[in-house]
């Protein structure tokens, strides 16, 4: 099932990773200020930070599984969804300003990633004859 694999190993990890970023930023905003080196390690004691780390790890594992199921050049353009979710989510969930230059900035980054994914060197194919990745 193509659609199910796409949801499980492409969309789900993207959603988990961006949720983790929002949770992390919201936690830091709500008073977990980092003023010293010790504070930096103390943030790990915050359960909300631990949840966001867990989300990032699960997302990374799912994405890696996705890499084995889809071609790299197919996966990469989906990375651009991350940038879109992050700038809109930061506005709606965290109240960050959404200036027009942010649209253009992620627009250029997205086009760049898309173009890189179209390079013939971004395609990894399974070589049937040699029985290994080309």
């Amino acid at each position: 099932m193509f659609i199910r694999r796409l949801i499980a190993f492409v969309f789900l990890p993207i959603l988990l990773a961006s949720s983790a970023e929002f949770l992390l930023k919201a936690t830091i905003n709500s008073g977990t200020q980092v003023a010293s080196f010790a504070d930096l390690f103390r943030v790990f004691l915050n359960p909300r930070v631990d949840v966001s780390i867990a989300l990032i790890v699960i997302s990374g594992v799912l994405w890696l599984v996705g890499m084995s199921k889809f071609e790299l050049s197919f996966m990469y353009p989906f990375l651009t969804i991350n940038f879109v979710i992050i700038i809109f989510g930061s506005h709606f969930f965290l109240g960050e300003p959404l200036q027009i230059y942010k649209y253009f900035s992620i627009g250029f980054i997205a086009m760049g990633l898309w173009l890189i994914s179209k390079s013939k060197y971004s395609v990894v194919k399974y070589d049937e004859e040699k029985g290994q990745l080309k």
Partner: protein
Amino acid sequence: MMASVWIILSVILIRALADISFKFAVHHLEINSFQDFMPEAWKALKHPMIWLGVVAGISNFLVWVLALNYLDLSFAYPLTAVSYVLTIVAGRVFFHEHIDDKKFWGMVLILFGVALMMFS
């Protein structure tokens, strides 16, 4: 302002360092079947670069927390795209990977988008 530039620069460098270290640890492996997986994964674990990758990965999270402490998420997150560019350049330098026109102009577009965010 200067402090935030240094923090974001370290995020980008450390993120790329983690990916490049992992690549060093696994690029000699030959996993062609399921039987190969365990012995080859063991080889990777004994490779010193994988541990540099782990350290860089953890440091990346710490520096990222520091970055979010000072910067908006919608500002800092797009800037991390520079690490894609560094990784491609490192692929060329260390692993003789190819950079064709599409990759080159893709990198230029990413850098342009990031510059737009930085200097707006």
